[in-house]
């Protein structure tokens, strides 16, 4: 996995509901619910922590999943959300603060 940084877009709405994160883009109104693992990645998307580190520390350690599978799934998840502008992706850390994690 190449070094990749992810940040939550400011153009979204998000809220926890029954253990799942609801996320909606205000740009194209696409609506997602994130499962427990995806929610962990979402919440860790601070723009400063490399995705590889998020997967290793927040996903593999917490959910006892194989690192290669976790990386592949995380890449797919990030690509899909970035396609809708919900996650911002860069090969260097973001200057901006992604803002507080939404209330659970």
């Amino acid at each position, binding site marked *: 996995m190449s070094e990749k940084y992810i940040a939550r877009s400011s153009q*979204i709405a998000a*809220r926890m*509901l029954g253990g799942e994160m609801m996320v909606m883009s205000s740009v194209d*109104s696409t609506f997602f619910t994130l499962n427990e693992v995806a929610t962990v990645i979402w919440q860790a998307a601070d723009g400063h922590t490399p995705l590889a580190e998020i997967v290793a520390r927040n996903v593999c350690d917490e959910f006892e999943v194989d690192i290669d599978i976790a990386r592949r799934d995380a890449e797919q998840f990030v690509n899909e959300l970035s396609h809708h502008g919900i996650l911002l992706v860069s090969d260097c850390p973001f200057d901006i603060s992604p803002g*507080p994690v*939404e*209330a659970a």
Partner: protein
Amino acid sequence: MSLMQEMNERALELGVPLGVHLDVTYRCNERCVHCYLDHDDRGELTTVEIKDILQQLAEAGTFFLTLSGGEVLMRRDFFEILEHARDLKFNVRIKTNGVMIRKSEARRMRDLGVEQVQVSIYSRRPEIHDAITKLPGALKRSIEAIRLLKSQGLKVAIANVLMTVNMGEHAGVQALAQELGVVYTLDPTITPKIDGDTEFANSGFGAEGGLPQQRFGGKCRRVLRASAKAGRRRHGRLSLQRRTYGGLHHSVWRCFPLCAIPAAEWQCAAAEVY
């Protein structure tokens, strides 16, 4: 079942007020003949109190937030409230007459990630629209606002409340919406007055033989059935309306106050409702 319906069902099971309509003011620069509000300022919630309510709503799980009034932009702190709402990651819709929206306001709404702005239009003919709003030049200014909002890339909807005086205007408003490239929504609801007085709603604003919607054709009846279904649902669990003086209501459509509560006791009251 769509993903959104699933979330609605889950919210229902969990007792989460997924959608909330918040009147931030009753003050308005229009005086619409059918309006259910009085416009005297009898002590609105302060900025701090509204922010506190928003915080509590976020913690309670509210996702969809409609900011309405009165006219929301009559509050000098409206953008401070909006910014706070977006910081809390609500999906925000704004209901406005658009009269006070200029380029800077439109740009700010876009920058803050507002989901949709709904503007009320009663007719594309100024002599009818302005007579209903009792504000000369209102239609021109509202249409200009829609153009500005669209030019900023915002999603805009025209809400067309139909009454006896503008019953024949819906086709014109639909055409206007199409020309402007915005969504058209028909609103057949005349809401009882905020004090619970149903005289105006039941009289149908001059309609003979009951509510004006009873005189609508087949297409409108379908809208009414859908509205009634949604209304029952809202009255049941899914939607709450919080009003600017601190009262808690079941919905816009059922204006009888459940209680009048200070901001700090909002969550307790919500818990009782749910």
